[in-house]
């Protein structure tokens, strides 16, 4: 496209939004409202997945060996763990080490473990994986090896969180779709007003031989301006409130009994991402809205 054509479209696009200022403001507000509602879901998803991954990476897999395990078998298992690329690190706890650990735990109350000797305990491996998503596959493989008695990790809570996250994702997509429809219809009605005001001009342009995209251009720009301005405003509002909330939560989490478990992602880590998502959604709203509104008048 020629630069002067581009200039013409941008100029006309801005003129359109300005001539129709009240409706433009109404549409921008609608975009802002939609993006803020969607933003709440988005923040929720981001933080949920952040905490889920934190939990997962802290998750320790404990592999207990049978008490009568042969040394050969135990070494085989260790070899498998050691050579597995999915393993980040591991330690091997002998019966004696396990006993020592217990003893330290109950140092104040040694009666509890009275009569317990290392012989009663099981040898074990404590394993951290690189990628928590590999947990179930990895444990399944291990459980098939000779000498493994039991494998434990906090699966239940992880699975619950994963399910919750799945539904939050589905929910935010549904909300996004609904908000998109509402915003698009309001934007397209706004642009329809400018299209209507300029229908004579459009008619003349068609007779003279303007191409469709040339006629459509200024209205597309108009829609994108609405979408982008809405996105920028929403971003400013979201950033402000999110920053306040996340700072509060992160500094006061311990006080409120959330100890180390729950943390919110800091704004600086996700700000760019949010801005990008908002801008894309805003522009898509504007684009679809403008295409809908010009279509009717292009069929001359």
């Amino acid at each position, binding site marked *: 496209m*020629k630069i*002067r*054509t581009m200039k*013409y479209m941008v100029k006309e696009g801005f003129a359109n939004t300005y001539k129709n200022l009240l409706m433009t403001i109404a549409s921008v507000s609608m975009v802002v409202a939609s993006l803020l509602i969607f933003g709440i879901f988005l923040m929720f998803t981001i933080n949920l997945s952040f905490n889920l991954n934190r939990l997962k990476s802290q998750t320790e897999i404990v592999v207990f060996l049978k008490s009568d395990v042969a040394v050969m078998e135990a070494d085989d298992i260790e070899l498998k763990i050691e050579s597995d690329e999915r393993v980040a690190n591991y330690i091997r706890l002998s019966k004696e080490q396990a006993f020592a650990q217990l003893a330290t735990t109950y140092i104040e109350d040694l009666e509890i473990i009275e009569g317990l000797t290392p012989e009663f305990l099981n040898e074990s491996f404590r394993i951290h994986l690189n990628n928590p998503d590999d947990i179930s596959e990895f444990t399944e493989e291990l459980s098939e090896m000779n000498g493994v008695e039991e494998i434990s990790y906090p699966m239940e809570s992880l699975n619950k969180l994963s399910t919750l996250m799945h539904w939050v994702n589905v929910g935010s997509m549904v909300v996004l779709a609904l908000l998109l429809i509402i915003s698009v219809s309001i934007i397209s009605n706004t642009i329809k007003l400018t299209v209507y005001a300029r229908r*004579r*001009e459009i*008619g*003349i*342009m*068609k*007779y*003279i*031989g*303007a*191409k*469709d995209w*040339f006629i459509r251009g200024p209205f597309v720009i108009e829609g994108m301006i609405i979408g982008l301005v809405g996105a920028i405003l929403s971003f400013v509002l979201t950033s402000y409130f999110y920053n306040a909330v996340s700072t509060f939560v992160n500094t006061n989490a311990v006080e409120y009994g959330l100890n180390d478990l729950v943390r919110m992602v800091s704004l600086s880590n996700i700000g760019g991402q949010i801005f990008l998502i908002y801008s894309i959604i805003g522009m898509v709203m504007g684009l679809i809205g403008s295409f809908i509104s010009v279509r009717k008048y292009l069929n*001359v």
Partner: protein
Amino acid sequence: MIEFKDVTKYYPNGAIGLDNVSFKIEKGEFVFIVGHSGSGKSTLLKLILHEETPSSGEVYVNEFAIHDMLKSEIPYLRRGLGVVFQDFRLLPNKTVYENVAFAMQIVEAQPKDIRRQVPVALALVGLSKKARSYPNQLSGGEQQRVAVARALVNNPSILIADEPTGNLDPETSWEIMDLIEEINQRGTTVIVATHEKNIVDQMKKRVFNLEYGKITRDVLEGNYTNED
């Protein structure tokens, strides 16, 4: 060059616009289309512009086949056609100069060509002095001259006018017709739909008479009616 072959145009509501019409107009000709209201004059012009498409038959305009062309080709068809309407269709918020320049802008002409050709077109229609006026500051005749300048500024090979003098007094009508004839003498093919009996009778051009969508008369150097 324009050619209609057995063209019939029905509107969706069943009204008949054109009924099995065939003719050929060569480059540089001047043709009047006359006939009662509703006889199909505007329909014929709309088919040339691809504002309507034929229900059956073939329509050729320059290198385009109207009955069988892509939507994306329509702008190129229309760039070869200049159009003038009874109601002028100028943009009220643009000056005379801007109205004419607009026609070149939207076909993405070079700015230097726009600066060169717009004054030439305005001079041709005798409106150089009114370049900075707005349409509502002009008489009807002057507004129609602007419309003619706009139709010509992209150098179309065919000029189409649908009742160009319909809103003008007799004297001004003659001025516009003289202008159109002058354009024709420079080599542009001209087709004018009109109800102006006096003008048609005096100018002695080729005349199509339409009745209920049929061409009932096609004569060179003809009159508005058959009588004389």
